[in-house]
């Protein structure tokens, strides 16, 4: 996993609530097209049925084509568990999504892939989106070391990330290795549980 410390890049606003993972990466793209996830990102919104880019879609606008940070509405990435939604954002170059809330499954998957979801109160997110929208430039900085971001208008905003999620992301550390270091505890649990609840296990 690629670590995340400080990211400076173009931010784009997508302030609709409840943008679901089917929209982020359409099923047809996963099934038929293969693994160029970044091209599949928002496939049905980015391109018409003829395959041509739709110029009005936010990520097709020249200002936002190099988007690295998405500023989104409530309950971003709800719905399907497809981790391809995270991979599609990363494949496009987006490494941070700022939103008032996220779908639970996406939120966990994001941290495991080096994509930082930042939760802020809805008014704060709207303020950032307005600042992103306003000027010629929409560059901003997200600093996970200091847990602070700087909106395009220069406003500094603090955010919090649970330390158990933040530390591995800062170091790009793999979860599985960390858990396997606890293998004796896992074995002890399974052994005791087998006595207590033998029906859970297949002998």
């Amino acid at each position, binding site marked *: 996993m690629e670590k995340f410390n400080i990211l400076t890049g173009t931010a784009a606003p997508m*302030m*609709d*609530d*409840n943008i*679901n993972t*089917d*929209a982020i990466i*359409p*099923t*047809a793209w*996963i*099934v*038929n097209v293969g693994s160029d996830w970044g091209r599949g990102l928002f496939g*049905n919104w980015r391109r018409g*049925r003829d395959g041509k880019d739709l110029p009005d879609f936010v990520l097709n606008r020249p200002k936002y084509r190099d988007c690295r940070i998405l500023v989104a*509405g*409530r*309950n971003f990435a*709800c*719905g*399907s*568990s*497809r*981790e391809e939604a*995270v991979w599609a954002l990363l494949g496009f170059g987006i490494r941070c999504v700022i939103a008032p*809330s996220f*779908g*639970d*499954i*996406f939120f*966990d*998957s994001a941290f*495991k*892939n080096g994509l930082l979801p930042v939760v802020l109160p809805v008014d704060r997110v709207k303020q950032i989106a307005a600042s992103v929208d306003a000027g010629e430039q929409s560059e901003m900085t997200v600093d996970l070391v200091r847990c602070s971001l700087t909106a395009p208008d220069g406003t500094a905003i603090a955010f919090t990330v*649970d330390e*158990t999620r933040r530390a591995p992301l800062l170091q790009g550390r793999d*979860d*599985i290795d960390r*858990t*396997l270091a606890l*293998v004796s505890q*896992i074995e002890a649990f*399974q052994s005791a549980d087998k006595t207590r*609840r*033998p*029906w*859970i*296990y*297949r002998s």
Partner: protein
Amino acid sequence: MRNPELTFAVVDHIVATSPGRNDSTNPAGRPFIEAWRKNCADFGITNFDLDDSRQGIVHVIAPELGIDLPGCTLVCGDSHTSSNGAVGALAWGIGASEVEHVLATQTVVQHKPKRMRILFTGRLTPGVSAKDIILHAIGKLGTAAGRGHVVEYGGPAIAALAMDGRLTVCNMSIEMGARAGLIAPDDVTFDYLAHTEFAPKGPTWDAAVKQWRTLSSDDGAVFEREEEIDCSALKPQITWGTSPQDVIAVDESIPNPAREADAARKTAMERALSYIGLAPGAPLIGTKIDYAFIGSCTNGRLADLEAAARIARGRKVAPGVRALVVPGSMQIRRAAEHAGLDRIFIDAGFEWHSAGCSMCVAANGEIVAPGKRCISTSNRNFENRQGPGSRTHLASPESVVAAAVTGAIADVRTLLG
């Protein structure tokens, strides 16, 4: 891989469900199926292949085979894993990275969820089913209400449901934003699980049931959020938009975004109506449909097919409507055939398929054509969900048959004999 013997695999999303299907019936699925089969063989994972009599949608077969048991922790790389909470398991959907973690360690690192309880009171009236209960709850509470929570469903209306209906309710927990939903196990649960292939047998079964009887919330248990919903006047529910929370009773008119105070909600409603091709204030009843789909991990179980067949019996699918029945598992398909349900559906003009996810997720080549309207027993009415440009209305199996035979969205209560 730490515990291959505690791991199960099945093909469901990607397989064709048409008669005589094989690996290549859905050409795009073939590489997935081949890789899946090889992986299962390489790692010694029990798998239910295309020609296995136990094949079916993962959330249908897990309880049906007794893999899913009260008190067990069950995860799967699919958000509708929440279904499995209906037997009193803690079951939730995870992403691919977490699946990898589980395979390697047989553990999954979680933050403690918040607790939510929804009590459903009252008795359901004829033509109203478990699907209507959960659609109504999502419509009332919203698609993000359960975020960060595990939801316990309880109350007399839940206790009165058979296992198939309880699975329907828990299935759509994720449509309320909750990763997991569950129902306290009782005799209904134990009768359902008894004699299933992977459930314990003999003295171990007796010991298990004794322990399972303790798996209910204490009196005075504390929940971060509690809701109560009266089901005694509940009508058949149906979605009008592109989020599962866009729900009304079938005889209501489509809501008007102009009357919506919240600006974001107003925009979302306008967008939904534009996509779905309907006007604010219009009735939904009478809206012509092109497809009717009965199946999915929400409503592909035997009780769903029985309820649908009761409405379909002696009727005909309306001209111009393509209607499919896709059983949730091959076991259910055989049970339905044993009961003669397949004849009822076929005589009425429905297609009778093999088991799989089919038109719910449109990953297997079975899709709704662009711009066409489908009434569906599935769980998501998102834009493009059933195929690019597809328009979906979620409803119960009974309501889907009512629309299939009349050619338009209808109130199934007018067809009850």
